[in-house]
């Protein structure tokens, strides 16, 4: 009897624990396009996972709830849990299954060949594993990073800028490299201190990284991934003496007084294209990239933060130059990969499948990542 009681209690506990992770509402209509997505953090993280959630909501608003349905499993930082969800959704026949996080690549590579009639997408990475039913997507976040860096360099009074990075991989590395490059574009003498804390989720460590930057006189901070809330908190405590630049989602809401601008990911730009291809019978094999040119990346300003009109005009001109390819947004050593990305961007609106297998460099698979 006691064992039964224990088992029943555990089942109840586990059931409650599972509550927020499942929002699946089975869809009956035959012609509804059905998407399922697994993501490493919460859909309201004001960062990587939220960017995908917001994109799917946007598409649903555009296509209508009758034509587009999506389910998601958030907070899936355990890759094995993601694997279970991916396989289950494939069996249920979803039209597109998205593994939103580079750490899911290995399991996707295993699962996708078992379901050749189901379309999968994953990112951020450029590798489709040579499979016809896998799309890959990435973000040219160095471009927005460069713009943020340009702005930061213009606003810094102490001449010291701090960056809180997660793991030196994927779009986080691109963002940081682009940011550093953007600062140097304005003034090479400015000091940019970069800390990769080695985690996408350790908020306490991100907080300490920000403390360390401020102790070293930084008056501007930026950072990538969902653990940056800790760093933002530290910046807020400085009561206006330290400004913040966001990426992935619009982070103004986190700290309306100190956020200057955010590079916002609009995945809907490429998801719409994927959906059209799937409806036409192409299930994968292409690599996509969001960037400033296709408006998958947008610099969104905090309306309550006053910026000089002249500086804003310079930012507009800079964005045009980046789009035209006149400005190098990555350091020399990273440019080879960057150029590959640019070429893919040019081709992405065509059927030119680019099932490149060369994106091994940013395969941060150790924990939740972007």
């Amino acid at each position, binding site marked *: 009897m*006691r064992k039964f*009681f*224990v088992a029943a*209690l*555990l089942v109840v*506990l*586990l059931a*409650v*624990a*599972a*509550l*927020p*992770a499942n929002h699946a509402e089975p869809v009956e209509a035959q012609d509804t396009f059905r998407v399922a997505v697994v993501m490493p*953090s*919460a859909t*309201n*993280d*004001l960062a990587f996972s939220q960017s995908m959630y917001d994109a799917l909501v946007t598409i649903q608003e555009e296509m209508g709830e009758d034509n587009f349905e999506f389910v998601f499993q*958030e*907070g899936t*930082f355990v890759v094995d849990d993601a694997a279970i969800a991916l396989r289950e959704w494939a069996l249920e026949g979803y039209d597109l299954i998205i593994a939103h996080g580079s750490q899911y690549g290995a399991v996707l590579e295993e699962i996708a060949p078992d379901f050749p009639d189901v379309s999968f997408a994953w990112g951020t990475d450029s590798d489709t594993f040579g499979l016809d039913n896998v799309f890959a997507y990435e973000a040219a976040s160095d471009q927005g990073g460069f713009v943020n860096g340009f702005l930061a360099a213009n606003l810094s009074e102490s001449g010291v800028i701090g960056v809180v990075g997660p*793991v*030196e991989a994927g779009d986080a590395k691109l963002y940081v490299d682009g940011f550093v490059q953007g600062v140097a574009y304005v003034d090479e003498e400015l000091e940019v*201190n*970069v*800390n*990769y*804390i*080695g*985690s996408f*989720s*350790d*908020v*306490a*460590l991100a*907080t*300490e*990284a920000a*403390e*360390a930057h401020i*102790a*070293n006189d930084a008056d501007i901070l930026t950072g990538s991934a*969902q*653990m940056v*809330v*800790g760093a*933002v*908190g530290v910046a*807020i*405590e400085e009561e206006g003496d330290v400004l913040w630049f966001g990426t992935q989602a619009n982070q103004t*809401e*986190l*700290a309306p007084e100190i956020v200057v601008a955010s590079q916002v990911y609009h995945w809907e730009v490429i998801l719409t294209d994927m959906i059209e291809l799937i409806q036409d019978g192409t299930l994968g094999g292409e690599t996509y990239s969001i960037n400033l040119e296709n408006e998958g990346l947008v610099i969104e300003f905090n309306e309550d933060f006053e910026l000089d009109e002249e500086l804003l005009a310079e930012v507009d001109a800079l964005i045009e130059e980046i789009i035209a390819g006149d400005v190098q947004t990555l350091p020399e050593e990273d440019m080879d990969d960057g150029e590959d990305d640019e070429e893919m961007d040019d081709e992405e609106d065509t059927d030119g499948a680019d099932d490149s297998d060369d994106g091994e460099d940013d395969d941060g698979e150790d924990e939740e990542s972007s």
Partner: protein
Amino acid sequence: MLDEIFRTTVLASAIRLATPYIFASMGETFSQRSGVLNLGVEGIMLLGAFASYYTVLETGSLVLGLLAAIGTGLLMGLVTAFVSVTLKAEQGISGIGIYLFGLGLSEMLFKRLVGTPTHVKGFPKVDIPVLTDLPVLGEVLFNHNIMIYLAFLTVPLSACILNRTTLGLQIRAVGQTPEAADAMGISVARVRYFTVTLGGVMSSLAGASLSIALVNFFQGNLTAGQGFIAVALVYFGAWRPYWVMAGAMLFSTVNALQLQIKTIESALSFDIPDEFAVMAPYVVTILTLIIASQRVEQPTALTKPFERGE
């Protein structure tokens, strides 16, 4: 230059980073010394972090936030004790159940009640007259908020209770030879209920130290595995409060050093691979754990439910 970095920034960082570990691992020390392994620390930390955060967000009162964390810890501690002591469940499995419960419930409540991460005004730094102004030491030791001092205060307090009081003797007896303790008239169940509930309160305070004192935000999975590290630190410290604190400080210092890696690199003029910096805290912890395990024995009755007459 390195000397300065180590003395001020790194040590002050390490003290802050160690705070949640110390709260949680002191509580777990009590629990384990009485023979109960609570792997649910992480889940209770998350619930305590959310309860205190939400209370402060709604009321603006840090005291109420602290009380909310204590209440949550009390409740979760009692649930854990009920499962482990009264129902005599397999402690490893039930602890994971408590963890998953805390992880899921805190995230669900956060989504339903708050939505997006919102900053709260946490405990401010406390200036201690004279001490804060001391050169170097003042900045490192006496420039923190009250939760940090409280965490470090629990260490001598725990050592004193465990080693110098009748209650401590009872706790150790129950964890070592519960049959003998029972024969002496000590209620094994009552002692274990006390330690596990105390462990719950301390875990909850560990969570609160993050959400309303250090980070001043809440988001899903805020603790990111710190509760599990706290359990490991109890083994690391051989169930002795001062050693557990030393373990927490060692782990946090290596973590804090990692944050200064670029400065250290430029001072030493050579590159330290980032991967090495990231894994260093864990490598140091594992190595020390191996060394520590050679010289101490865990409480004999750890993880074993007590059945009178067995």
